[in-house]
């Protein structure tokens, strides 16, 4: 059974704190993604990675950075959290070259920044 695991389901942080969101997949997928999900706005792509050590900006990268040191792990970093980064964060992975582009999602990390 395919699995994308996000280690933190719920986090509460204060403005200015550094936040790490971790994601691990066990499907040997090359591609990994970080989205944020907000009511009425749907899923917006923050960053993605086609392979180890590679990263590409998505639609809303400002205020975020990522790290992909190992194939199975993709981390999202908020260097200095702000209240407008309160959101649900979803990690996803995808097999490179797959026909449909199907994404496999984790269960999400709900971040509240006070």
């Amino acid at each position, binding site marked *: 059974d395919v699995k994308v695991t996000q280690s933190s389901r719920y986090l509460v942080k204060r403005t200015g704190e550094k936040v790490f969101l971790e994601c691990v997949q066990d499907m040997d997928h090359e591609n990994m993604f970080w989205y944020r999900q907000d009511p009425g706005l*749907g899923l917006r792509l923050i960053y993605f990675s086609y392979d180890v050590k590679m990263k590409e900006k998505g639609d809303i990268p400002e205020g975020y950075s990522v790290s992909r040191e190992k194939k199975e792990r993709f981390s999202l970093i908020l260097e200095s959290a702000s209240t407008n980064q309160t959101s649900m964060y*979803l990690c996803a992975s995808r097999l490179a070259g797959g026909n*449909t*582009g199907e*994404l496999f*999602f984790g*269960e999400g990390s709900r971040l509240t920044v006070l």
Partner: protein
Amino acid sequence: QKEVEQDPGPLSVPEGAIVSLNCTYSNSAFQYFMWYRQYSRKGPELLMYTYSSGNKEDGRFTAQVDKSSKYISLFIRDSQPSDSATYLCAIYFNNNDMRFGAGTRLTVKP
């Protein structure tokens, strides 16, 4: 204009009703059309995908694509309380870009 438009609802129907969920898109350089289902406090999961105009059935679910109108639909027959979830349309474009609709929150009441 967003590339994929979807009415966020919410939509509430009685058990047994036929549900129609819809999206429109603007870019014709697509590969696949998809519907994801997301239960509360869970991540989205792929429900159905199709790439051609017409209908595709899977049990009580039917995905419909009208390329001429740039319109995609998901129909749920004999809806059940277990169908209560947010449904997101998604389009996988030729450039490996995946675009999602805002999601429609559906509640099926017993």
